[in-house]
């Protein structure tokens, strides 16, 4: 897939909470959105911030071809993401996309029992993945973890695609505790896709190995270029250190040394 540098215009900035925004953007020149695979990401230029320098890698949440809108779910993490949370309608945001490899889709004719596990802002790429799985005839089920009910993001969007199971640390919604303790996990799965904080993904990877499920996780190591040039975002794999930006961000857990 050819990578492009594209100016996008913010069409809508929906504040989901003081910490999260869902940005909907369209190419400023009116062109169609480039081809994108679920799990790929964009490198967003942060303009108008005093202390940021590098672009920020952000997962692609949804590619809505009907409205020509790209959705990005952004969590306030520092000065760079603060600029994005504050980006008003009409603002131009420069991006490089599509980057990374994305999740692998089942072969035609396969119908694996599939669970998508997301934690916090890590639910972002699972939306587009869920949509494409459903389009491929596979009904995805979701397991979403969050600190509390207020941190659950876009649950209604996921409910449109399949059953949604919820875990919260404080028990304010769904089952209390971490996702790996949720009763849904014990039902047996052929395939698990997971994106969230590293400790959560490592725990999910352990469970996936125990139950014999094929498992892919999406990593978010700190990046500079996002293009495989700087070699900063490396992850230790069975093949040695590899760039998360080009060899990932999605890895089958068999490739990792977890």
């Amino acid at each position: 897939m050819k990578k492009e540098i594209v100016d996008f215009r913010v069409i809508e900035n929906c504040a989901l909470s003081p910490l999260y925004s869902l940005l909907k953007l369209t190419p400023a020149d009116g062109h169609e959105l480039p081809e994108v695979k679920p799990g790929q990401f964009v490198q967003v230029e942060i303009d108008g911030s005093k202390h940021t320098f590098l672009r920020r890698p952000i997962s692609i949440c949804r590619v809505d071809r009907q409205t020509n809108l790209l959705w990005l779910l952004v969590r306030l993490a520092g000065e760079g993401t603060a600029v994005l949370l504050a980006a008003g309608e009409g603002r131009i945001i420069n991006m490089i996309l599509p980057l990374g490899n994305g999740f692998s889709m089942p072969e035609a004719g396969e119908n694996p029992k599939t669970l998508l596990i997301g934690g916090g802002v890590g639910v972002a790429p699972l939306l587009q993945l869920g949509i494409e799985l459903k389009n491929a005839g596979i009904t995805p089920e979701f397991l979403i973890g969050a600190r509390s009910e207020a941190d659950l993001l876009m649950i209604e969007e996921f409910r449109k695609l399949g059953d949604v199971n919820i875990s919260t640390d404080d028990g304010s919604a769904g089952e209390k505790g971490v996702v790996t303790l949720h009763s849904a996990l014990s039902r047996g799965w052929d395939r698990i896709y997971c994106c969230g904080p590293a400790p959560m993904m490592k725990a999910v990877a352990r469970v996936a190995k125990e139950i014999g499920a094929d498992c892919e996780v999406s990593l978010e190591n700190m990046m500079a270029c996002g293009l495989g040039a700087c070699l900063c975002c490396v992850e230790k794999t069975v093949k040695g250190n590899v760039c998360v930006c080009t060899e990932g961000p999605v890895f089958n857990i068999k490739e990792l040394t977890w």
Partner: protein
Amino acid sequence: MVNLNVKIGSLELKNPVLTASGTFGYGTEFSDFIDLGRLGGYIVKGTTLEPRQGNDYPRMVETPSGMLNAVGLQNKGVDYFIDHIYPEIRHIDSKPIVNVSGAKVEDYVAVCERLADRTDIEAIEVNISCPNVKQGGMAFGTTCAGAAQVTKAVRKAFPGTVIVKLSPNVTDITEIARAVEAEGADAVSLINTLMGMAIDVERQRPYLSTITGGLSGPAVRPVAVRMVWQTAKAVSIPVVGLGGIMNGRDALEFILAGATAIEVGTANFIDPACTVKIIDYINEYCRRHSVSDINELIGAINR
């Protein structure tokens, strides 16, 4: 028509814009964004005799107007480069320059010999200034004797243009430049990254796995311009300038200070197309200032 051709030793460049080692991969990573054939040259990733895994993650942290890195020369080794990378890039209508690094003098020599025997690479950049490896690297670049020793050995092993990349982490960079000039270097390039450090105060730990790392980006540019200016006056071989060049204006600062060519590094991470914009800007600047040959601008502030 403005002449942008410059010469570094026997290496002829169609324009003075190169890419800095470690920031441009092998060039092909950027082929979606620019026509690589427009570059004066591109300096490929630091190459060592044996493959290297580099340092542990985390290797990077953003800092004001720049970043610290501690990659530690991760690369697949010179044989992999010659067998798998070189065939992919040799058709590009630009000059590939291989950045050569090693823990021992013999390693530098072995890499140079293989490049000389098995490729048509016209120039190498000898890295005696990497701050992120325990052995070799900057250890050679911070003393005149060490720098001279590597240069002398490499000069014998490689018949083409030898550019020696200098460390700014020294008391007087001009002494090192003179030492490598005396041993037959065709040019010097400067500056490699400035050694730095950043601490996560919430975790009360350094950000980098190696604690210290190399600072790059516009934060280092004034230091780099000063060192290029001093060095260009101290030696008679060409100086290649780098350090925080983000745009054409920045590139011209280095040229006016005395650089014959420049390298674009960290800026590639922010705008992968910045190199061609810099070439266009230099061209436009020359027209605007009625300069018919870029060589007239080299060191022009001294005149």
